[in-house]
């Protein structure tokens, strides 16, 4: 938990001060990657509150989420439905994020 928060803060601070040029190849996938990683993080937070957090599961789900989302959008771009598929991925991840957040909320407010 502490590690995740610390890492998030470090990353944001580094991102504020270092502004790298994103390679053009991964430019369209970066937002999807970020959203997928956010979903994995919220899933991990939910698992933490449910006392079934497993670091392995988190690590694997993190990378699996990111890679799957990226590949899906890549596939969509190659098939000519990139923007639609991107929307689909965003919608699914958004729904997951919402359900995770509501689960966390229930845990917090149930006491």
């Amino acid at each position: 938990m502490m590690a995740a928060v610390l890492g998030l803060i470090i990353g944001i601070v580094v991102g504020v001060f270092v502004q790298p040029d994103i390679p053009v190849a991964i430019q369209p996938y970066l937002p999807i990657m970020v959203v997928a990683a956010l979903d994995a993080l919220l899933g991990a937070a939910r698992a933490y509150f449910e006392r079934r957090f497993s670091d392995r599961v988190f690590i694997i789900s993190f990378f699996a989420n990111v890679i799957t989302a990226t590949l899906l959008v890549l596939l969509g771009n190659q098939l000519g439905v990139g923007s639609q598929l991107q929307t689909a991925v965003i919608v699914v991840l958004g729904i997951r994020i919402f359900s995770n957040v509501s689960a966390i909320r229930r845990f917090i407010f149930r006491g």
Partner: protein
Amino acid sequence: MARQNRHGRNRSRNTVSELRERSEEERRNDDTATGSFPQVHGRTGKRTLKGTSDFRIRASSTILITLMCALLGFGYMTQINSGPSTYETMSEDELVRLINETSTQAQNLEQRKNQLSQQLSSLKAAADQREQAQRIANQNKETSGIISGRLPAQGKGVIITIGKGKDKDVDASTMFTLIEELRNAGAEVISINDVRVVTSTSIWDDEDGGLQCDGIPLTLPYTVRAIGNPSDLQNAVNIAGGIGSRLKVMYGAKVSVKQSDNVQIDATREPSTNNYAKTVE
């Protein structure tokens, strides 16, 4: 004693089974498996056997989690900093609209540029015109300054010296003829002694046989300076039957004409203001 002993054994057995039950219960309570995630039990024994390895795994996974979250935050900030969305993910309609907008904007800018360059060229032309006008005005000022006698002048010309007439004094009309001859020969600036000859200059005889020019008495010998083509001016004076020979023959005056490359006429005259004459617009 035996009874007591048996009793004690019974009690100890009770305590052991109680402890066993409790630990069983605690283990059940500690089980965090919910069925949602498959629990890996294979390594539990190994973990408990080697504490150092367990610690290493936990530390490395903590570091990995930290790193991943840092990556997430970094990616997030980078995406925020990278500004507007990229074109690759836009649909065709959006791209077409974007192109139209851009080309319209480019057209507008081109138009604006044309306008501005037109303005610039017209301003430049105006500046050129003004410069030219200024140049002409300067030229005019110089020319009119020389003509009206306002400015000192220098250049090629002749210096004519006329001595006292032995037979009779040189009169005003002869002097006037000399000036006219010089003018005809193209003299641009003339002065007699220290009097600048301008359009309104007049010469007259005074009572003692001398000459006055514009109210200033002229002293002998008369020195006439003229700026113009030196040989033309010399010819105009020395021509056979001309003013030079007349001065010599009729008045017995000594006349010398000297060409010079640098005749300086420092005498100036303040131009008179015109009370009545005005330029025609």
